[in-house]
């Protein structure tokens, strides 16, 4: 197959699913990826400054601008499920030597359908069939579910601030280790009146008095009530005595889940049973049901499909099921296809004005050719 034939094969598969072909904006304000995902993504972004000095980026994938189209459509008052597909270029700074800065993604994005195991399995099957149409037999498929870690944290019943910190740290390069090992510092004596004040007004007065006593100027854009809220959250975490041993054990056990996709739900369930975390059951059931459906649709993937609990934790806007398909002749960091669920993205892009469940997947034609032993 030629490159053009590979692009056509994948694209035809996605178009046949009823998705509408689009080619959204190439250039986005850098605020879109950076406010949404944070500075960690900057290392891979093709950033430039326009003639007015505004920082812009070349689209790092198609999911972001397509989700932007959908957010605009929904904010404009049109409802109902919608699916888009594309064969278009995206731009990223290379992560490894030899990676191209400009590459084509052939993919689809589906919005507003039920966020359930059936839709997860269908989207997965669509990508897998497109890969098959391109004439490649995958050697491995890595899967994960980014809803699992938060489900376990929620079931542990930690103070809100600690739970939120753990959930966010899980998605960062450094992970949760430093956080679970830290011991919270005590609150200084002169701040106790601020904490013990009956009203926010009294707390503000006490806080300003403590600052004046220390000779500290009030600078920065955080307001006094924000600082007081932070202080209260810290006092709550302190009262809870940091991260309890049980939480450490659960996080350690979760991190060790790395098995065939068929075993995943049983392994997660065993952790939930051992630590009495019954509130995780709906998240675990979803992992089980999804894999059953995938095996029914595609019996051949059972042998090569794996599940790892930390898989994809640094893929910025994904928040549920996700997967990467690996082909021959390529490294683990160069999947030929990938996809996942991002139910929170449309809301994040529109500042809450629009809301839509979402799942998508892409094939990389350049890597498909390399997997087939052609092209470099």
């Amino acid at each position, binding site marked *: 197959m030629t490159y053009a034939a590979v692009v056509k094969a994948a694209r035809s598969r996605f178009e046949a699913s009823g998705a509408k072909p689009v080619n959204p904006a190439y250039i986005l304000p850098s605020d879109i990826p950076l406010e949404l995902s944070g500075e960690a993504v900057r290392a891979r972004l093709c950033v430039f400054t326009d003639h007015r000095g505004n920082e812009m980026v070349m689209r790092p994938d198609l999911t972001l601008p397509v989700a932007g189209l959908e957010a605009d459509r929904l904010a404009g008052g049109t409802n109902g499920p919608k699916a888009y597909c594309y064969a278009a270029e995206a731009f990223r700074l290379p992560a490894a030597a030899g990676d191209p800065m400009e590459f084509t993604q052939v993919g689809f994005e589906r919005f507003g359908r039920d966020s359930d195991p059936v839709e997860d399995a269908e989207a997965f099957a669509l990508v897998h069939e497109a890969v098959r149409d391109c004439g490649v037999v995958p050697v491995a498929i890595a899967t994960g579910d980014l809803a699992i870690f938060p489900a376990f944290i929620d079931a542990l019943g930690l103070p809100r601030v600690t739970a939120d*910190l753990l959930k966010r740290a899980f998605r960062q390069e450094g992970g949760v280790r430093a956080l679970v090992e830290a011991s919270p510092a005590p609150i200084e004596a002169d701040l106790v009146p601020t904490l013990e004040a009956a009203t926010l007004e009294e707390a503000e007065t006490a806080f300003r008095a403590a600052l004046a006593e220390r000779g500290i100027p009030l600078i920065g854009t955080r307001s006094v009530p924000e600082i007081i809220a932070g202080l209260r959250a810290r006092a709550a975490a302190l009262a809870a005595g940091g991260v309890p041993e049980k939480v450490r054990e659960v996080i350690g056990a979760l991190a060790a889940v790395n098995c065939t996709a068929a075993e995943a739900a049983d392994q997660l369930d065993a952790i939930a049973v051992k630590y009495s975390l019954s509130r995780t059951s709906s998240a675990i059931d979803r992992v089980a049901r999804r894999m059953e459906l995938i095996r029914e649709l595609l019996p051949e993937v059972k042998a090569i499909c794996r599940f790892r609990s930390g898989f994809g934790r640094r893929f910025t806007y994904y928040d549920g099921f996700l997967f990467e398909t690996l082909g021959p002749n390529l490294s683990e960091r160069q999947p030929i296809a990938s996809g996942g669920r991002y139910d929170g993205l449309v809301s994040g892009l529109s500042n809450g004005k629009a809301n839509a469940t979402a799942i998508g997947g892409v094939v990389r034609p350049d890597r498909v050719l390399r997997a087939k032993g052609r092209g470099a």
Partner: protein
Amino acid sequence: MTRLSLAIPSKGRLKEKSEAWLASAGFPVTQIGGERGYQAQIEGLGDVEMRLLSAREIAQGLVDGSLHAGVTGEDLLHDLAPTGESDFDVVKRLGFGGADVIVAVPQAWVDVDTMSDLEAAGAAFRKAHHRRLRVATKYMRLTRRFFAARSVGEYRLVESAGATEAAPTTGSADVIVDITSTGATLKANGLKILSDGLILKSEAVFAVSPGAVWSSEAKASLEVLFAGAAIKGKELLEKI
């Protein structure tokens, strides 16, 4: 670039100390065109292209391979190297130009003493203001790497052109990543260093570029310099 291309800082104490170090090793530097000229020559190393540049230009030159060797700040090398420490070789720490690269926040933030406190404050800030907390710095890569390794993600970088410590007062950013030697400037600006906010203990270093094109002539000059300055650089000379 066949002859050795060597650079030292063009101004101030870094320049004086660099010249003194080279002179003590037996390689005196003289400026062409008087005190204000940017061309110079160095004795004792054979035919060498001696250049006077800003410390930042020297670090950039070493990282991209347009300079063979030079004196610059470790902070700048770490910040400008796209893949980190494999992009340069520090052969000698020179014991001057010492400064810490640190993370500092307003002293008024009595709820923020550590990097994870900062992450919590950043998340609350985003909810309240619908934008991320701003971090002003000249050290864009160094900051990004350190914050990522400490699992801090709730922030936006603002590139600072100078007087970074004033950013929280003027309101252009709340947090800064900057160099400090005594911490006095920070204190005067109402800032405090986070307890785990030391990114790098930096000083002036003599560094070599592994990515430059090395002729036998350039290598020979470097070998003479190593011998004069009592640097054990046999392995490095074999590598480049």
